[in-house]
């Protein structure tokens, strides 16, 4: 099995264009998949393109257009970064993905590219209106995270492309939260999760709001109907405005972790909880 470890993005792109490779970064998805296949006698593995020796792909930088998260930025990098409250939810997710061992290795971009319905980063990125920067043989392009995440474990990444960064536009005065529901405290795959971002004016009225739910559909979804209903409403009363209808576009499944009906009900509760949390932090700040 071939193992490529290029030291430049150009080399990596050339390899990606020429070979059907598995990209390896933090390894927190690649190795478990390999182990699961081997357990049932399937040792075959595609060639590996290890992108961790490429300089410049790791780190968080503030740019005029927004915050840039290099593709190799880990969950722990995110958790430790000094970031505005816009990122409180995403940072909370960073502390709830696997254990510290996974957080120290796993990358933000890898979580997105793996495209698991239960990927904890994805609803956050959707709520953050993140843009995915992708490099390919034709150059670099960007696309919104919602366009990037196309389905169950599938993305808009072309065969020759590599994700190079996630870019999050600034949102002045925003606060955020993230709530994850699982059946145990640590090392748990989400049953349902909610990422919410809100901006209020001095009167406490919602001037911007973005809410996304994960693990309740093949791809995490923004609750646009709810967002529209909450605009212009007082944050303090927002939780009370949530109805089941606002979650109607979700399509949860029954699996070993939970029933579909439960997921939907839990997501509704979590959305209310998230709005309550945000209202409470607003009240604390005001006090």
């Amino acid at each position, binding site marked *: 099995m071939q193992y490529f470890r290029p030291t430049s993005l150009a080399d990596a792109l050339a390899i990606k264009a020429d070979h059907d490779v598995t990209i390896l970064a933090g390894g927190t998805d690649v190795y478990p998949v390999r182990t699961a296949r*081997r357990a049932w006698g399937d040792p075959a593995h595609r060639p590996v393109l290890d992108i961790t020796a490429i300089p410049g792909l790791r780190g968080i930088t503030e740019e005029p257009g927004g915050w840039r998260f290099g593709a190799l930025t880990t969950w722990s990098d995110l958790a430790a970064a000094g970031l505005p409250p816009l990122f409180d939810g995403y940072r909370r997710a960073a502390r709830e993905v696997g254990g510290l*061992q996974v957080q120290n290795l796993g990358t933000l971009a890898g979580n997105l590219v793996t495209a698991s319905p239960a990927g904890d980063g994805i609803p956050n990125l959707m709520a953050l209106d993140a843009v995915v920067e992708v490099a390919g043989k034709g150059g670099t392009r960007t696309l919104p995270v919602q366009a990037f995440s196309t389905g169950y474990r599938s993305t808009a990444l072309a065969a020759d492309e590599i994700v190079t960064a996630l870019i999050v536009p600034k949102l002045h005065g925003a606060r955020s939260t993230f709530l994850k529901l699982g059946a145990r405290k640590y*090392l748990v795959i989400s049953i349902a999760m909610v990422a919410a971002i809100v901006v209020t004016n001095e009167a406490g009225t919602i001037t911007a709001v973005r809410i996304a739910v994960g693990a309740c559909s093949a791809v995490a979804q923004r609750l646009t109907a709810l967002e529209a209903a909450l605009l212009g409403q007082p944050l303090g009363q927002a939780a009370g405005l949530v109805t089941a209808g606002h979650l109607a576009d979700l399509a949860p499944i029954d699996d070993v972790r939970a029933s579909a009906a439960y997921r939907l009900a839990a997501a509704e509760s979590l959305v209310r909880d998230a709005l309550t949390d945000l209202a409470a932090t607003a009240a604390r700040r005001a006090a």
Partner: protein
Amino acid sequence: MLDRPVLPTVTLTVNGTDRMVAADPFASLADTLREGLGLTGTKIGCDAGDCGACTVLMDGAQVCACLVATAQAEGRAITTIEAEDPLVDRLRAAFLAAGAAQCGICTPGMIMAAADLLAHKAAPTRREIEDGIGGVLCRCTGYIKIVEAIEAVARGANAFAPVAEAGAAVGARIARADGLPKVQGTDRFGADFAPEGALWMRAVRSPHARARFTLGDLSAVKAAHPGLEAILTAADIPGANSFGIFPTIKDQPVLAPGLVRYRGEAILALVGTREAVEGLADAALPITWEVEPALIGVDAALAEGVTPLHANIPDNVLTRGYLETGDIAEGHRLGTATAEGRFRTGFVEHAYIEPEAGYAVRTKAISSEAGTGSREEIAWDDSSDRIEVTACTQAAVMDQEEVARVVGVSMAQVRIIPTACGGGFGGKLDVSIQPLIAVAAWLTRKPVRIVYSRTESMASTTKRHPSQIQARMSADAAGRFTAYEMTGDFNTGAYASWGPTVANRVPVHATGPYKVPHVRNATRAVHTNEVPAGAFRGFGVPQAALAGETLIDDLAERLGIDRWAIRRINAIDHGDRTPTGQILYASAGLPQCLDSVKADYDRLMAGAAAHNAMGGRTARGVGVACMWYGCGNTSMSNPSKMRITLARDGRLTFLNGAVDIGQGSSTVLLQIAADALGLPTAAFDFIVGDTDRTPDAGKTSASRQTFVSGNAAKLAGRDLRAKILALANAGPSARLALDGHRLTVEDGEASRVIDLSVLASEADIVLAGEGEYDPPTTALDAKGQGIPYATYGFAAQVAEVEVDRLLGTVKVTRILAAHDVGRAINPTLTEGQIHGGIAQGLGLALMEEYLPGRTENLHDYLIPTAGDMPEITIHLIEDTEPEGPFGAKGVGEPALVATAPAILGAIRHAVGVRMTEVPVLPHRLWAAMQGREAAE
């Protein structure tokens, strides 16, 4: 195909030293550390980032070494448990002193995670400690003592475990006798070593639950893969191709002969270089499957007209168990209130962090007639060859019997050398790898090793029996139980394993530890096309306790009696009669257990009422449950034999055949033997469980080692003491002291020194003590009447939970655990057993559900993490067992049984729903709460 690729060399900086190693760049760092550099302190529990056993530091931050490519580790500073580091040293000492290492398989990862935490945060809170170690799973300790050890290091406390003086070992909290290598990472588990050049084995397993198969030309496969030494099939087994716990039920093939009965059953064994056996895909093997309809679940297996799993069991009912006393109809008639219910539990996985591993070697017989000193090899003579199996196990002599049978040799030709056992809980009682590697080593005449993957371990080895129980219970107006009846079907899977034990243990225990005059309990163990269910901490009793304790809560509710009070009214006591007709003359401490938790129970009840009166998001509830558990085999002989030798040079050796699976028998038995002899524990060397050297102590199961082997250890100590005293002509209260080959015997004013070096010896041994003990029991008659056990453990546990009314999530906030252990030989270890049992009980209640083919890894199969544990308060009740060594009896299984029913009772108290199926996953509780709301 190239079977041995030329590997590139990488330089790894490990513990400050640059080490060159040839390794596949994609090989995990964990694998390269272990197989390439021999640094086997880093353990592999799942190879998927789920368990944290392989935690090492990379540039100071904890990572799972199984998720790091070897190429990525180059140039990074890697720190492993083998590091010489002051902080790691302090953690090692603290873990040892606190009893934070039980089996020790998670200990290296746990210590590395703690080192990361403390290096970055010198004074962490308890919550921060839990966060810091949250990525490492432990199945033995319940994390409590691990957190305490880390807290002690953070405080700067000196790690101190007492050293017991002669005669003062029993009751002392001495450190584990086998603990130092566990905290140093030098203890050798099944996967940690193998002879140079050993071949590897990989079993090819059925992906189908029920199928017939035919094999094509395997010799062509072998020819095409030069690294393959052999492809073994059922036809290659030299002896009997079958094994099983019961001498009369050897129903499980080592390699399936053309028919598989469950998904995960082995059909072939590939033997060769590691690259060859791992690199050959199952799909490339000439196997033709003919899939048949599988019988999944007991109901399917009991349906009319189905094709049975085994031709000799046409109705798929392996065994029936039965107990009857009094007149059940009369009993219900005497009741003022009757409660009934149906209860279901699923497969539960042992989830020991060490997957099965070991190696086998065919050796030439050695002539070592005692006393001759001759160790010359006999000339090449196959008939006397021996097979040695070095592997993790709970039952060395049973392994010896199975291997002898399968290889087709005598018992004397088989040697079992148990490695350190990284958790067992019943799952390593049955053979797994042993017959496979023994056959391969026998046939190839080369050492053969195997390491199960996590998934292979989960898919192929035994589970806790799923149960379907229907029960009915009555009580009179005063709350006195008048009748209990139950029928239970236990899904024993494809093969018998311990199914008969479960079917027999449950009827005896199903009433719980209460006075019930009229009882009728009937059980069946039913074959299905699912993974064999076998022994798991409690042998069916935890499942039965869920039913019984729930009905008691029903009766309490109907009669308006407090749940603690109704249990106290009925608690079995000294002089009471059990449903088997046995009178408990002594050591029946349930009333004391209940009394010891009463004040806290009342306080928690008041706290819950106050909390719930505020009407917040969470509802608080309190539950109580009791348990009992017979120590040792049910109405069957289960002797143990122990030996202590004193050599000419003064070497005192405890030859202990009881395998320590983490619970601490090596330490407890040593404490018992030491006090019986009258010398300090520190004076002993010990050898554990080598069938060539230690007498048969029986298996490590049924909570029997402290009680049964403890008695044998005590007798061995007494025997040696008697011989010493006779030699010195000293009285029974004489004091002994051993200094080199000088043994001093002080009897009052008189003192005599025995020079051991001049005594007559046999193979250097001048004196030896032996003890053998078999607990007194009687057979059970057709109605289950008799004396099934010599003694019973008892417990009462109280659980406090908080339930999220909207999400249905349950947080167990507190457990009070009162256990009558007779005598706590080593209270630290006793508490460790209780903590660990509670963790497993919590898992059983709230999260653990093994679904064949679906939850066969440690991210879909959930066991409690450090953050899931409640605060635990333990009351050790010591109602002395006169039959026990220094009054002791077992605690291993009793620790678990009461926890799940107490949690279910607490959930019910909190939110008013009576759960009858575990695990109570959030969606199940939510659905039940919805149903209740709809009904109201």
